């Protein structure tokens, strides 16, 4: 199938959609904002995975990051909720149709401050959701205040010197029993894309802590959420690639060069070894490594931890095959006869 745009034959994917079908509205974020780069990787990931946009639902809270769902997947339903309250909104909505996959976009203000409670609790419920934290260490929409992920000693214009220790999103996710914890860098689009693909296949909560520089308020070269710092300090755990269930693994890896994890839906994530041996299924190794990375000031990226087998929230509830929101009245209202029994159950 092809699609005609400006007279040119456009490439389409296996479901017959062109990349245009995955676009959103033009971004109103700043030129060069890391969030725009993440939005375009979401578009590419969904296009390449042949996902019908109607099979995705988007959620966000409040802040620059939370505006971004408007800039991708216009054909997907979306709900821009309240500050820090995206996880609960998503939790309720995801019960309506278990065949739809959710992408939640949040920020460091939205998840590490006002929304810390909901962030932690959506983890322990293992709700199936790609939870992206676009992490830039600063409040953008209110013009440049420290966020809870800002490093101690960060100096921001008009704000002085940050006296507090930072919240580490990936660490919080790991401690909070998240079943998929990744960290990435908006300046590493290929890794971001592969992680999004893997996250979309994960049957549970997938936290992506993506350092996404704020070019307007927090991009000084020597600070932890800047492009320059990220490029200088990124230490990738592995080179990862996502292989959907139907696809064959095309690249052969030499013995010991790569490991793989099979996801709940049969897809695979291939980890090509870089500097170190690393087993992303080992939670305590993940904790040790995060500690080491923080001590050595690395921007550690990659899939830090994954447990593909933990039942998701939806598995626990054992709901109908038919999406709940399509159940007709006769499957929702008890029979007329039952009311007599109910009255008899009273006294």
């Amino acid at each position, binding site marked *: 199938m092809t699609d005609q745009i400006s007279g040119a034959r456009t490439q389409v994917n296996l479901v017959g959609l062109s990349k245009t079908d995955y676009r959103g509205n033009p971004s109103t974020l700043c030129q060069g904002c890391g969030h725009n780069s993440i939005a375009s990787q979401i578009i590419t990931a969904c296009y390449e995975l042949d996902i019908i946009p109607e099979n995705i639902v988007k959620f966000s809270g409040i802040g620059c990051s939370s505006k971004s769902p408007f800039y991708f997947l216009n054909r997907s339903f979306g709900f821009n*909720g309240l500050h820090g309250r995206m996880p609960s909104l998503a939790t309720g909505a995801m019960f309506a149709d278990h065949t739809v996959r959710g992408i939640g976009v949040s920020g460091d203000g939205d998840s590490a401050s006002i929304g810390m409670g909901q962030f932690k609790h959506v983890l322990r419920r293992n709700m199936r959701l790609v939870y992206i934290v676009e992490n830039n260490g600063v409040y953008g929409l209110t013009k440049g205040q420290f966020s809870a992920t800002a490093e101690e000693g960060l100096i921001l214009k008009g704000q002085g010197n940050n006296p507090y220790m930072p919240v580490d999103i990936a660490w919080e996710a790991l401690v909070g029993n998240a079943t998929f914890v990744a960290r990435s860098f908006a300046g590493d689009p290929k890794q971001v894309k592969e992680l999004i693909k893997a996250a979309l296949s994960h049957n549970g909560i997938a936290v992506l802590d993506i350092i996404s520089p704020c070019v307007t308020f927090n991009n000084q070269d020597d600070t932890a959420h800047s492009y320059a710092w990220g490029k200088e300090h990124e230490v990738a755990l592995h080179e990862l690639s996502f292989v959907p269930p139907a696809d064959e693994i095309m690249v052969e890896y030499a013995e010991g060069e790569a490991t793989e994890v099979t996801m709940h839906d049969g897809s695979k994530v291939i980890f090509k070894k870089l500097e170190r041996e690393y087993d992303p299924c080992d939670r305590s190794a993940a904790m040790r490594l995060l500690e080491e990375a923080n001590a050595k000031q690395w921007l550690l990226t990659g899939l830090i931890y994954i447990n593909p087998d933990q039942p998701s929230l939806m598995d626990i*509830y054992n709901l109908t095959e038919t999406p709940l929101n399509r159940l007709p009245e006769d499957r929702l209202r008890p029979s007329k006869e039952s009311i007599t029994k109910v009255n008899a159950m009273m006294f």
Partner: protein
Amino acid sequence: MSTTQPYEQPGTSARAQTIVNDFSITVGTVNGSGSQTSNLTILRALFKMGIPVSGKNVFPSNIQGMPTWYTIRVSKAGFLARRDDQEIVVAMNPASFVHDLASVKPGGVFFYADDIRLPITRQDIVIYPMPVKQVVKATDVPTNLRDYIANMVYVGVLARMLDIQLDQIRQALDFHFKGKPKPVDLNFGVVRSAYDWAEANLNKTDPYCVEPMEATEGYIMADGNTAAALGAIYGGVQLAAWYPITPATSLAEALIEYLPTLRKDPEDPDKNTCAVIQAEDELAAIGMTIGAGWAGLRSMTSTSGPGLSLMTEYAGLAYFAEVPVVIWDVQRVGPSTGLPTRTSQGDLTFVNFIGHGDTQQIILLPGSVHECFEFGWKAFDIAERMQAPVFVLSDLDFGMNQWMTRPFKYPDVPMDRGKVLWEGDLDRLNGEWGRYKDVDGDAIPYRTVLGNRHPRSAYFARGTGHDDYARYSEDNQDWHDLLERLKKKYETARKYVPEPVIEAQEGANIGVIAFGSTEPALQEACFLLAEQGIKIDFLRVRAIPFSSQVGDFIRQHERCYVVEMNRDGQLHQLLSLEYLQVATRLKSIAYTDGLPMTARFVSDAILAMEEK
């Protein structure tokens, strides 16, 4: 123990004038001691004897050790409101003994556990000691259960002294313990021993007793929270998110109890059709509820005042983004933590405007336990029809007390799922539709829900400004038009909400307006006023926005008393705002102290104002 009465018995000579089925019993116990089982047993036994009866639990915000009271009113006339007078008082708690003794109405009766060694100074009442410890000891009760079961002694003594039938007590115990023979036998054994002891040792000198009637035929006993949960189940609830809070907790717990039997999928009995989620707080409970409502599920949450405060921001978003959800507020006494275990109608104006900016919410006001059931399902129809939050205001008195009530009635109309467009609808419309466009002139737009696969189905919901097509807009005209449409939609809601109930008397030119759990007090007050020669029409408001009958009622009467359980006269305030031109006819009678309203208070207040 002594069976001779230490005092002169004023009732002795009056034994001939028995008082049958018309008095109140109050039992003072220690909370956490198992007294609720004893109290409910008496209540249910009386109900099974066919006598109209009501029970009010006045309990502390505490797990164990503080004084708690339970009042049972038997009324052959069928009046179920709380009374201030206590003809019979049972004292089981040393800590409240002095208070309990003082609370007996002159000429009344005082039963007390005889291990409480405090002076009894009153000469104007009949006094019966109860050898609680000895009776328990003499019965075959395991030592670890003795303290719990001790309260069954007063059940047995009262049964003997008031003529409560033992077989009905056994039935009540059987119900309470779900037919498990061991606890039934154990408890009944103590009741029986106490009964036998009283028969052998107490000489009845007071005038109070009960006699079987047939006045409870066609009634059941239930609490409002269970009724609400069952109503929601028959309303097809699909998601309920909640956080524990007194007095709303048992509503969600009733959902958990009854869903497995009532709501398995008829096509696959292994599968569930509703999810109940205990959220981390009320912020999340309402968030989940709104997510689900937006996505096309019948969703609800249940809470009380403090929880509602936390839900405020999302409630405003649901109003503005037009998301159907049902929110039960089982009211307790505020402000702040207030009196968490006492009843009130203090959330009315808060809920009416809940949300910042111009917000008007739809409120349903059930006035009986069976109406809690009815509004339990109806609230979903109204929410989905209006695409708006619907708040149902119950209170602790309804929610946590057992009421004699009409049986739950199966919904008499099919579900109203409102204006939802699915794939086929969008095909017919060639995908041309606007989420917030008023197509039908009733200000209710059409919506699509998550999972709709039509390529034009999706839209982006938000709490920010938007146009008819759900596009982000800061345009001044768009904003103005949107708020005006929401106002018009609120007007449309008047047709869909339950109409008031009016009880008119021939020739009455004054009226009284009330809502919710004060209904029995109002019924009885109208009767008391009639005895004084005052005819009064009674309108019970069942929803806000008010239906046209409410305005008509005010205009048809010279004066209307507005009676409610709060300090500020909140219904009076809302009626005055709505009916400004006749507002001077509205007279506020507002009172709150945490206890259910009495008929005497209402009739005295109206009498005093009428005499002015």
